């Protein structure tokens, strides 16, 4: 038996918003693979839950006529990992979703929950940062769109208001078309593991495929929230693909990240990972973009 004081199963997003407004203590539960564990731990003992589990309007992936990808927030990681639209347009994100937990966790865990938890280690977060995802929040005052870089305010903290539900994650066509991407996760085991470090790289090449038109480099667990190495990205705009390029990117990333020591890994080890994983992810992203990274 879980230590839950109040439980309400919402019948729709609007119903969930109403229930949240009526109870300022209420917590949203979707898949439950984080919330239920925290209840077991005692951290959320005696909580009041508003469940959005199983709401059909929160499930599925579509591509609009303008080419925008819309991922409903309640879509499970297994669906995302196997979704034909995502595998074609943003395979890096499908791959990242496939690195979460194990098969049963991927069947229950939702991408929206992964984002709303606000943790830096979320497997989907670095890819969504690299993809410039936009988050669609629906609350009592209607719907608003928040760029993912403005969503996180600290570890476990986001700008989502108490009565808001994350309803969709949107990725514009210009943010995926023409890019090659690569997500790498470092963990001590291959499954059932929280990332020691996550790195997502996206590369768009110049028409001759000899230089970087645009780089995007995002990390999880390299700072208190997921982050992008924007200074490094700017610095290599137009740079030729040479052996020195990967050194420059790795050095740039090291100047921008702020990892901490935790029981999982020391700051020093994470810095080593930041450097090495930037090289590997960028090299693979260049290949995935159609270039040669024989460097």
């Amino acid at each position, binding site marked *: 038996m879980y230590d839950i004081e109040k439980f309400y*199963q919402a019948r729709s997003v609007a119903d969930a918003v109403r229930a949240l407004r009526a109870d300022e203590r209420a917590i949203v539960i979707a898949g439950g693979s984080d919330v239920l*564990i925290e209840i077991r731990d005692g951290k959320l003992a005696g909580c009041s839950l508003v469940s959005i589990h199983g709401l059909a309007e929160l499930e599925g992936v579509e591509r609009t006529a303008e080419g925008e990808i819309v991922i409903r927030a309640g879509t499970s990681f297994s669906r995302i990992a196997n979704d034909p639209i995502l595998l074609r347009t943003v395979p890096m994100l499908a791959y990242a979703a496939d690195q979460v937990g194990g098969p*049963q966790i991927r069947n229950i865990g939702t991408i929206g929950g992964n984002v709303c938890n606000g943790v830096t280690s979320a497997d989907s977060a670095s890819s969504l940062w690299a993809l410039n995802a936009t988050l669609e929040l629906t609350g009592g005052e209607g719907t608003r769109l928040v760029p993912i870089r403005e969503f996180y305010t600290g570890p476990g903290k986001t700008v989502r208001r108490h009565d808001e539900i994350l309803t969709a994650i949107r990725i514009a066509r210009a943010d995926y078309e023409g890019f090659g991407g690569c997500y790498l996760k470092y963990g001590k085991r291959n499954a059932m593991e929280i990332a020691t470090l996550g790195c997502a790289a996206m590369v768009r090449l110049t028409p001759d495929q000899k230089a970087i038109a645009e780089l995007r480099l995002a990390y999880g667990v390299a700072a208190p929230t997921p982050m992008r190495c924007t200074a490094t990205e700017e610095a290599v705009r137009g740079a030729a693909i040479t052996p020195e390029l990967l050194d420059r990117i790795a050095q740039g990333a090291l100047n921008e990240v702020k990892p901490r020591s935790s029981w999982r890994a020391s700051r020093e080890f994470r810095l080593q990972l930041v450097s090495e994983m930037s090289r590997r992810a960028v090299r693979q992203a260049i290949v995935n973009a159609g270039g040669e990274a024989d460097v």
Partner: protein
Amino acid sequence: MFKTLTMTVNGREVSIPVDERESLADTLRNRLGLTSVKKGCEVGECGACTVLIDGEAFDTCIYLSLWAEGRSILTVEGLKSPTGELNPVQQAFIDEAATQCGFCTPGLIMSAVEIVGTGKRYSREELRKLISGHLCRCTGYDSILNALERVVEQTYKHVGHEGEAPGPAGHA
């Protein structure tokens, strides 16, 4: 608070009162006597409580019972054929001696039923990933993977075509 939960369990519709704080593992074990559903870690790490819900494997220790409303649940108790024969997955576990203490076995068998139900062929590495949500502290997994390889191969020979999955089901 108690609520009435209506779901299909091993092919039979049941309607029972459940506490809204209850996990599906508790409901299946304590109210329906389905003790193949084992409670190991209770935080979704070990996979001992795995059952199929609408054909997909879930850890029932982190699944609220009320979420099962209208859904179809399959546990090891539902695998036996009408004439009492074991499911091919169960038989493969016996043939390969894939069981020692037996605690992880029901959960692994349910994941295996889902895997076999796709009708696809998998490499040993792929199978390793597909059962990575289960912990076994006895066998070292080798005999379990042998059993999976055996039954996946058997099924593929009978019904299998790449991409033409008959869907996860109970006893064929």
